[in-house]
């Protein structure tokens, strides 16, 4: 398999932030049908080993294209842009304020009586910001504003982490 081609080309998709997710899933399943190690269960050992490697790359590619955050990061890495986006958001006072507020809400929610509904509020706010940022990224990326796009990715990262944390708190409350 051509490991030098990018993930989009692997699935026969155009290099773009906007991805037809159902088409992606369909292509993914087609590829796995072809290369999953189970398809090589009766083949010589080295074909089996190759199949494991190929299937792992296909899985990796699929998971990166599927996730709005990882897809954004991947697109920037194709442009050789990596790293320091968070340096710029720490200078964005509005964003910082919002961060602090949400974090406080999250901390309070864990102790409150109606913890679940408070957590739900935090999650909703984070989710709507997260999806708004995805639109912003799409604009910036398609206009080749890569440094701005990098900053947007850093912001997306923050909300994605927050959403994971909300989920963890919910698990803890469950147990």
């Amino acid at each position, binding site marked *: *398999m*051509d490991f030098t081609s990018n993930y989009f080309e692997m*699935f*026969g*998709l*155009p290099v*773009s932030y906007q991805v*037809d997710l159902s*088409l992606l*899933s*369909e*292509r993914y*399943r*087609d*590829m*796995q*049908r*072809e*290369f*999953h*190690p*189970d*398809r090589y*269960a*009766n*083949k*010589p*050992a*080295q*074909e089996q080993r*190759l*199949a*494991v*490697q*190929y*299937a*792992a*790359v296909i*899985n*990796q590619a*699929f*998971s990166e294209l599927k996730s709005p955050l990882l897809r954004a990061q991947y697109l920037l890495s194709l442009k050789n842009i990596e790293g320091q986006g968070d340096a710029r958001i720490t200078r964005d006072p509005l964003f910082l304020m919002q961060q602090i507020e949400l974090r406080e809400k999250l901390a309070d929610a864990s102790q409150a009586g109606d913890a679940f509904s408070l957590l739900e509020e935090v999650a909703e706010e984070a989710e709507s910001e997260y999806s708004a940022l995805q639109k912003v990224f799409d604009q910036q990326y398609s206009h080749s504003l890569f440094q701005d796009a990098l900053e947007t990715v850093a912001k997306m990262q923050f909300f994605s982490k927050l959403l994971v944390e909300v*989920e963890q708190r919910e*698990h803890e409350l*469950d147990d």
Partner: protein
Amino acid sequence: MVLLQISEPGQSPEPHQRRRAVGIDLGTTNSLVATVRSGTPETLLDNEQQHLLPSVVHYGTAGEVTVGRSAYAQSSSDPLNTLISVKRFMGRGVEDIKTLGSQLPYEIVARDADGSSSKGMPNFKTVAGNISPVAASAEILRVLVERAELALDGALDGAVITVPAYFDEAQRQATKDAATLAGVKVLRLLNEPTAAAVAYGLDQGGEGVIAVYDLGGGTFDISILRLSHGVFEVLSTGGDSALGGDDFDRALAQWIAEQAGLGEDLGPSEQRQLLMEARKAKEVLSEQTQVNISVAGWSGVLGRDQLDALIDPLIDKTLRSCKRALRDAGLNPNDVASVVMVGGSTRTPRVRGKVAEAFGQDPLVNIDPDRVVAIGAAIQADVLVGNKPGDEMLLLDVIPLSLGIETMGGLMEKIIHRNTTIPVAKAQDFTTFKDGQTAMSIHVLQGERELISDCRSLARFELRGIPAMVAGAAKIRVSFQVDADGLLNVSAKELTSGIEAHIEVKPSYGLNDDDVTRMLKESYTHAREDMQLRALREQQVDADRMYEDLLAALNEDGRQLLNDDEYHCLEVALKDLDKIRQSENHREIARHIEMVSKTSEEFAARRMNASIRKALAGHSLDDVEKDV
């Protein structure tokens, strides 16, 4: 004659002979074996026309081992020598077992599994000596294999053995070890809920999201899958590896003990009897609304309401896991097209009722919940052994628990997150933290918690010979690879110097290779088949397979993908293999297999490249533009 065939393109080799493959559900309470015959999967019966083999092993004073119903019959008269629910002990340390419940009617002795581990592997003290859970499981497997070999009239080519999706690496490894001890070739360890989904999915031809609710004797699993054109994609899994119908029995037994005014310190025999009474009562309540119980001079009436109240907290725990699994898959209950019930404990009406309520639909129960897992495993075994060429079915499974390594401060750094589709390969870079540091210890962990003390320790190894540098200058890449069986390989490499270390993860509570060898030797005494013969047969099967495959491959596109020299080289290697595969020397056969494998490596890679070009040829640029 054979060479003529090779050089004649388009000629296909002999059709593969139908291979003997089975699916084995190695359950906590009962075990089963199934196979696909004439296209239909079926569970195999014993000579008393029973599908279920109780997962009970009894060790007698004269060294005789009985398995199944006759063993179960001795469980209250001879509790210490009758091992029940050993699956709950698979891959566990003595410390873990203490948390499984204080009322174990066994004598457990710790035995160091690998010397380096401070926590020993638990053994049951019996008249036949100390018995590990792995050895007891192997006894159960032996009986099932024997049943299958009788029914299929010959030695098995392989088996798919099911495990709870929630089993960690150590528990999976212990299961594989049991199969090795029993002399069964494992084609795949398959997650039980996935097996059930396969049985239902292929039976009903349904598409869409399937939730599999699997409540067995000792474990609970929930899996969310998507079925699309024969591809089963596991979206998320969750559950509890220490919660099941046995806990219903225990809750009920405790209630009975309280009602009957029995004290806390019952002997092993009374405990067993109480548990058996509880289980009987529970089973009656699946059919009736009340049951009479009499125990130790006390008698009373138990209503279904009372049972429901006792088990509700346990059922609620399973429903919380369901919610979590759905959330992990990014779905809501109303996205679920069908709910599949697996495991004997889903016969309890309260369980069905509460699950129906949680998913807003009646769960599917039309395949016997005791048999559905074995049936799914048999279907997968049939595919993996090569009886079903073609592309009707593919399983894309996930790892149930995150994998990572220990970093500074006793924290777990996740490298592969749970619910990641396997196979998977991931790498992460680390660095040294002291000037002149020349070694780095890699501690491989599994679990979701931050502190390493809350995670399961799988393995430790060291990367030595790092050139002395200032702190932070070395770049150590740690790579994790999980294959389609869910088994892990870890390697570490210092990038500036190229120094490398590698480990195949053998979890601390599995058996080490010496243990397996020793136990295999011990089993010689009552082995039905000489191991040498088995090894020879296995090598012959492998050689035959390789011969046929390579022959077919050469015929198919050897001429297109190889130059004359390469083609000739492979032809000669193949001819040698053909000669040697009929000999009686299994080492020589193995050597040739390895040789042919090396010689044909490049050819294999080219073939796979050719097939990806074919796979992608369907998606031309036109297509891509149309799709946008």
